[in-house]
């Protein structure tokens, strides 16, 4: 159970600026979705929260404590886990070995290999298979399972539906529903706006590294989000 706060964050890829003065907070147990076009800075922002990308300015706070300078592997131990874009499983290792790696941070909690397989039944038959041989849906389940094995208080999900069939996406979100109701704080990047409206409490819309729209999903209309997404509304930044 934790809160995340991002304060005046600037992120760069070399000379390219991926995020400009981004600030937002995520309350305990809240599910927040980041939406925006490709290149809006969503993935870099999630990687910065996870510690894989060093901000050029600003702070990241976990439960009010500044973790900006903390290395990625130590943040996992503090309860921040990222399911990276493109899964990034260790292809040469088995599903079970990938899951066990999530334990390296040594955070105590309820998740075990058996529990993960219970939550994602499609992994049951593939437990000893090399991760590189899995289907996209199985890989995504294994990647989420690996993050869960570290018993995260804050789970960051980066485009978990990317490259999956609609059926596989339904199955995946079916498994995630339980997690979202269990009180884990979640920040997710998702391209499917319908899905965002359905699963998230709040949506943050980014355009060219800036937050252009933010609000409870119940109060946001699809049209308003679409306008912000493409930057064609009256809230376009100067």
């Amino acid at each position: 159970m934790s809160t995340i706060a991002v304060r005046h964050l600037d992120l760069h890829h070399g000379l390219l600026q991926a995020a400009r003065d981004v600030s937002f907070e995520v309350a305990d147990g809240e599910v927040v979705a980041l939406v925006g076009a490709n290149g809006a800075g969503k993935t870099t922002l999630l990687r910065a929260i996870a510690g894989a990308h060093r901000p050029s300015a600003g702070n990241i706070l976990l439960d009010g404590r500044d973790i900006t300078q903390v290395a990625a592997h130590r943040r996992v131990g503090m309860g921040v886990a990222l399911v990276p874009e493109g899964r990034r499983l260790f292809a040469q290792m088995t599903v079970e070995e990938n899951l066990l790696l999530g334990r390296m941070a040594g955070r105590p909690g309820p998740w075990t290999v058996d529990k993960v397989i219970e939550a994602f039944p499609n992994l049951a038959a593939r437990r000893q298979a090399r991760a590189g041989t899995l289907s996209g849906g199985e890989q995504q389940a294994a990647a989420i399972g690996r993050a869960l094995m570290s018993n995260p208080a804050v789970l960051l999900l980066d485009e978990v539906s990317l490259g999956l069939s609609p059926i596989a996406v339904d199955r995946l979100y079916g498994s995630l529903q339980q997690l979202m109701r269990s009180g884990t704080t979640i920040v997710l990047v998702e391209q499917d706006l319908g899905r965002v409206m359905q699963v998230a409490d709040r949506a943050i819309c980014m355009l060219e590294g800036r937050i252009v729209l933010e609000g409870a999903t119940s109060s946001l209309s699809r049209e308003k989000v679409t306008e912000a997404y493409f930057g064609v509304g009256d809230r376009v930044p100067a």
Partner: protein
Amino acid sequence: MINTLVQGVLLGGYYALIAAGLSFMFSVMRIINLAHGSLAVLAAYALLVLAQNFGISPFLGLLVVLPAMAALGFLLQRFVLDRALRAGPLVPILATFGLSIVIDNLLFEAFGANTRSLANAIGTLSYSSIALPGNIYVGVLAVGTFAVAVLVLGGLQLFLSFTAYGRAIRATSEDPDTAGLVGIDARLATAIASAIALATVGLAGAALGMRATFDAYAGGSQLLFAFEAAVIGGAGSVWGTLLGGIVLALAQTLGAKVSPLGFLIAGHGVFLVVLFVRIWLAGGVTPLLRRRT
């Protein structure tokens, strides 16, 4: 003929032992350590000093030298290899080449040009042998070295497959960035791998010192044999390394039977043939290097 084969296989155990650390470092850290042979000679000198100045048997001396080599490996990764790797994949090769020159010349400075051996310090073990049927005699030391090589290689395999740190090291070698995201301290994992590699180098140095003579500049030829065994066996595969050592040694002993000059020539010949076949099968040098083991 059978005698030649048996002696060849046993010599292969020694080559596998010196190749174990080189192959381990290459497979999990993607580093070709050109100081490998010099570090083995350094360990041999350390055992010699303990034996001559303090009367400590080389076997007991290993209790001091192996942890010292492991500590050296940890520091080597932290202060040399880690920095060198960040500068590009070829820089560690240059860095370890430089390190080998430094070690060789420091040893020369300290111990001079005399050839040394640990044989005096291990009593009858250096020449005692076991009689096998068919009038074949095998050296106790050679059999022991072979057994240690199998134990080291098997131990490395079990460590990588079944322990948490082994998994962490494999994950780090595959994708260090993602390893950090799942909670692995990638720098610590590679430093531990380096420490393990250098502990096996300590064992190789002990085997070198007990079975033969060495001098300050003996590292180069040890590196060459280790490198050839690792490449023949398919660098990075644990049991391949044992096989590679045996193939290299068999080629050498059979070559020596043909002509006294044949020992080295046959060994290098097999190495080159295997190397070119591998390059040809992989479709060029670049795909061969890129292929993950």
